[in-house]
């Protein structure tokens, strides 16, 4: 029986954050700190003729201005080659550290100014004169693939950066003989992640030891260190990367950025600490985004609405460079079928280069788009066959008796996609019950009599979580009895330190206040993957659990020697090992640690390895699949296009719950992001690929007044067999079904107007125009 795991213990992060004592990257300061500002491309596509820095160099307080030609001799490669491998690539489009020949999106870095203050650095950056020769730009991913489209990179013969197919079964035969085939063309948009803290880097070079320490607001400190060591040719003991408190990540901070290597170089070459803090406008044009996908899909069903096959084309906007890989559309393609039995599947996936900010995962990472596509098709099938939208899903959900269900699909790393746990029909049923789905038509009819338009919609998702192969955790008890936990996991606000402390405390005395957790520091642990893909509770949690159990076993063995009793008679309680239930006979964890530190010439107690510590790197290659159902009820004003969410019900199954309050916080936060994607968030570019939404007054994030009037969360618990704790990831779940469920609810509310939502975000002007179009004779 657990005492700490599974409870809503107080977060270890909160006290510092609530008192203003936390340390984010911009809170770090040193005497003599210099400040960097970047000169960024004003053109979406252009050749660079010259970069004139002479006026900028005259600004008092400027210490250095670097272009590529000024730093190239320090770099092993001018390009940042960070892409995950894939045979799908047709073009290699790596980002340059600084651009010196051709710029391919507004915002890419051309030069850096380093000065005594940020104000001076920005003054001087504005005086750097870049002479551009503008080239035609491409801003639309569908248009980008047309034969006569302008090329996003002038060196390339076309804009198809990668293509691949995914599927199984004979779709030609299935679709030729199917009783019903329905077609939908669906456009989707994700936008910008917008962690409230932008990116930032501080670098300092210690001349005595010749070590660079780099603090970066990154989700992947170990990967960051590897890239900088490669690019600057550093031995790995000459660079330490530390993630301080991070003000939200949501995906883009997992990517390596040019600013990180440039700051490391600047600290060393200028012999001074240097800081760069991204401002919000830079965040709009230089931090990666997730953007348009076009899904041109067909679904084949029998007369009962059972799916026979699914096929189509996915065009994905890749942005201007490869900053991560083909992983976003791969994740989309590998997610679309999962909740349902789909006997045959074929998807043609094309990645289009455009002159826009590079695309990499944002919370949900391609899966919200896949769910939108699948669920819109399911709603279409229901409408055409005159079934209810819940019934058509019920007939197709993977039944619990088939779990674990081996799909024919593989992950990007080649592992089979096996739906390991969960009861999908029960999850849907739980959501419908909590939402009073059965009573909705009466509510709707009553409202309609008052001239109000209510609608309801639902969406199912199955999410791959816990991306492997491992995340190391070390647990060490010091000679004063304090427990030190270090992990390659990276905290970015999702309570990672609390999660690790809880898992370790469960085995080692249940005293949360006796545990110090270090995350995101390459000096604290050798290996690490970091934070993404709803993986850290699963992967680091598994390693923490294993390491804590090992340390516990060691402590009990030594304590048994010291107390001269059998190990079975002992327990760890607080900061001691004691005879079960007897606080008189006990030995401190610190004493045990001291005994295991050894004495010259004496045996180590128990014949054990020295040290009261263990490091575990539990390998879990297979992903564990969480699932859920969202039911959204809305009221729509057909005159203004305003969509008000009146009730959102979210039933989900993430296996065993480590901390209920944190899990609910993750879901509601994800939900808010999904509501933004459904109704508000639009990253606009004009036809020349100039960004047109570069402030938070133009790009709308959901605020407290846009949240649903009522939120209900229902937990189902199917522990996964893939890790000992039985947990599945949950950090991205809230976002995934929201666009689909909101679109279904808006369709339902506006059924009298025959409105069909095929794109998100659903903005009020779009909605009014759809209503007017439908009303036109």
């Amino acid at each position, binding site marked *: 029986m657990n005492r700490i795991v599974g409870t809503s213990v107080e977060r270890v992060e909160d006290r510092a954050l609530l*008192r*203003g004592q*936390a340390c*984010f990257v911009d809170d770090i300061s040193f005497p003599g700190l210099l400040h960097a500002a970047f000169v960024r491309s004003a053109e979406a596509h252009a050749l660079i003729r010259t970069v004139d820095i002479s006026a900028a160099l005259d600004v008092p307080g400027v210490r250095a201005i670097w272009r590529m030609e000024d730093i190239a001799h320090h770099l092993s490669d001018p390009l940042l080659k960070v892409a995950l491998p894939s045979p799908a690539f047709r073009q290699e489009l790596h980002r340059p550290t600084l651009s010196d020949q051709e710029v391919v999106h507004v915002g890419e870095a051309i030069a850096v100014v380093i000065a005594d203050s940020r*104000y*001076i650095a920005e003054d001087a950056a504005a005086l750097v004169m870049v002479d551009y020769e503008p080239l035609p730009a491409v801003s639309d991913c569908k248009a980008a693939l047309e034969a006569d489209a302008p090329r996003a990179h002038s060196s390339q013969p076309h804009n198809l950066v990668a293509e691949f197919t995914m599927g199984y079964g004979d779709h030609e035969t299935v679709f030729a003989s199917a009783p019903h085939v329905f077609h939908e063309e669906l456009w989707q948009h994700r936008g910008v992640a917008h962690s*409230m803290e932008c990116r930032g880097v501080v670098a300092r070079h210690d001349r005595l030891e010749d070590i660079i320490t780099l603090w970066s607001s990154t989700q992947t400190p170990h990967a960051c260190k590897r890239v900088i060591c490669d690019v600057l040719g550093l031995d790995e003991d000459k660079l330490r990367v530390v993630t301080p408190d991070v003000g939200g990540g949501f995906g883009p901070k997992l990517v390596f950025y040019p600013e990180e290597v440039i700051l490391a170089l600047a600290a060393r070459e200028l012999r001074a600490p240097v800081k760069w803090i991204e401002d919000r406008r830079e965040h709009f044009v230089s931090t990666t985004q997730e953007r348009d996908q076009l899904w041109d899909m067909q679904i084949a069903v029998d007369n009962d609405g059972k799916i026979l096959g699914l096929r189509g084309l996915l065009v994905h906007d890749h942005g201007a460079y490869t900053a991560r890989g083909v992983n976003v559309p791969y994740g989309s393609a590998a997610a679309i079928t999962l909740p349902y039995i789909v006997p045959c599947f074929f998807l043609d996936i094309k990645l289009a280069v455009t002159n826009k900010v590079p695309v990499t995962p944002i919370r949900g990472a391609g899966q919200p788009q896949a769910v939108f596509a699948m669920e819109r098709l399911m709603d279409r099938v229901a409408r055409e066959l005159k079934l209810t939208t819940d019934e058509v899903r019920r007939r197709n959900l993977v039944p619990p008796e088939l779990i674990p269900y081996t799909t024919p699909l593989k992950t990007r790393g080649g592992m089979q996609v096996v739906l390991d746990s969960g009861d999908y029909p029960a999850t849907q049923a739980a959501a419908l019950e909590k939402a009073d789905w059965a009573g909705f038509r009466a509510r709707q009819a009553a409202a309609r009599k008052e001239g109000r338009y209510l609608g309801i919609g639902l969406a199912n998702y199955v999410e791959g979580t816990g991306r492997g192969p491992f995340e190391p955790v070390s647990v060490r008890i010091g000679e004063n009895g304090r427990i030190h936990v270090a992990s390659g996991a990276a905290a970015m606000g*999702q309570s990672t330190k609390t999660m690790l402390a809880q898992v370790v405390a469960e085995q080692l005395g249940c005293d949360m206040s006796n545990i110090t957790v270090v995350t995101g520091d390459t000096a604290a642990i050798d290996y690490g993957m970091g934070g993404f893909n709803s993986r850290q509770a699963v992967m680091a949690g598994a390693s923490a659990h294993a390491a804590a159990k090992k340390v516990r076993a060691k402590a009990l063995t030594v304590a048994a020697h010291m107390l001269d009793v059998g190990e079975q008679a002992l327990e760890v309680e607080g900061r001691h090992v004691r005879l079960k239930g007897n606080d008189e006979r006990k030995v401190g964890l610190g004493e045990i640690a001291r005994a295991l530190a050894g004495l010259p010439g004496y045996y180590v107690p128990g014949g054990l390895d020295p040290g009261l510590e263990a490091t575990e790197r539990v390998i879990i290659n297979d992903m564990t699949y969480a699932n859920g159902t969202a039911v959204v009820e809305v009221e729509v004003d057909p005159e203004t296009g305003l969509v008000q969410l009146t009730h959102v019900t979210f039933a989900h199954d993430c296996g065993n719950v480590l901390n209920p309050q944190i899990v609910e916080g993750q879901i509601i936060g994800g939900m808010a992001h999904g509501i933004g994607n459904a109704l508000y968030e639009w990253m606009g570019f004009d036809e020349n690929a100039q960004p047109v939404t570069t402030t938070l007054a133009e790009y709308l994030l959901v605020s*407290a007044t846009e949240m649903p009037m009522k939120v209900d969360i229902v937990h189902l618990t199917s522990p996964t067999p893939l890790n000992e704790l039985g947990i599945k990831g949950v950090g991205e779940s809230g976002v995934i079904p929201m666009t689909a469920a909101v679109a279904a609810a808006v369709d339902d509310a506006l059924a009298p107007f025959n409105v069909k939502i095929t794109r998100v975000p659903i903005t009020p002007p779009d909605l009014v125009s759809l209503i007017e179009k439908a009303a036109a004779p």
Partner: protein
Amino acid sequence: MSEPMREIEVTVNGKLHRASVPVRMTLSDCLRHEFGLTGTHVGCEHGVCGACTVLFDGHSARSCLMLAVQANGHEIETIEGLESAKGELSHLQAALRDHHGLQCGFCTPGMLTTLTELLRDNPSPTDSDVRIAISGNLCRCTGYEGIVAAALDAAQRIKDAGSRA
């Protein structure tokens, strides 16, 4: 071109600070980098996100949209000034912790100052009052539900204790 400077005196959280600052320096930069009070965060530098909100002579204000020189002779309260002299969290701070009203904590300084003002001026706010009060404070982590619950609970705690936020 040399940077024009001004001497300023600002009372922050009851303590007098003196500094010589560039006239164009924002109040948020002054608080954070001149006075070392980094609890106030800067999220957008254009007055929308609300993370930098401080209490300026008792009224919530965006410190990124003010200049440090405008604060000369005025009183400011920031997140660092909310706990008691003994280091106890305020009712609002404790309620935010208890209702999981923060995750990454970056928006928290602005939420705390905005809601401290609300609870002072409106000791019995409704759910809607709280949402409207923080509609100028963006949070990307929590979905706001924990923050709203914390504010309502804090109002009750303050009443029960007969004290301030």
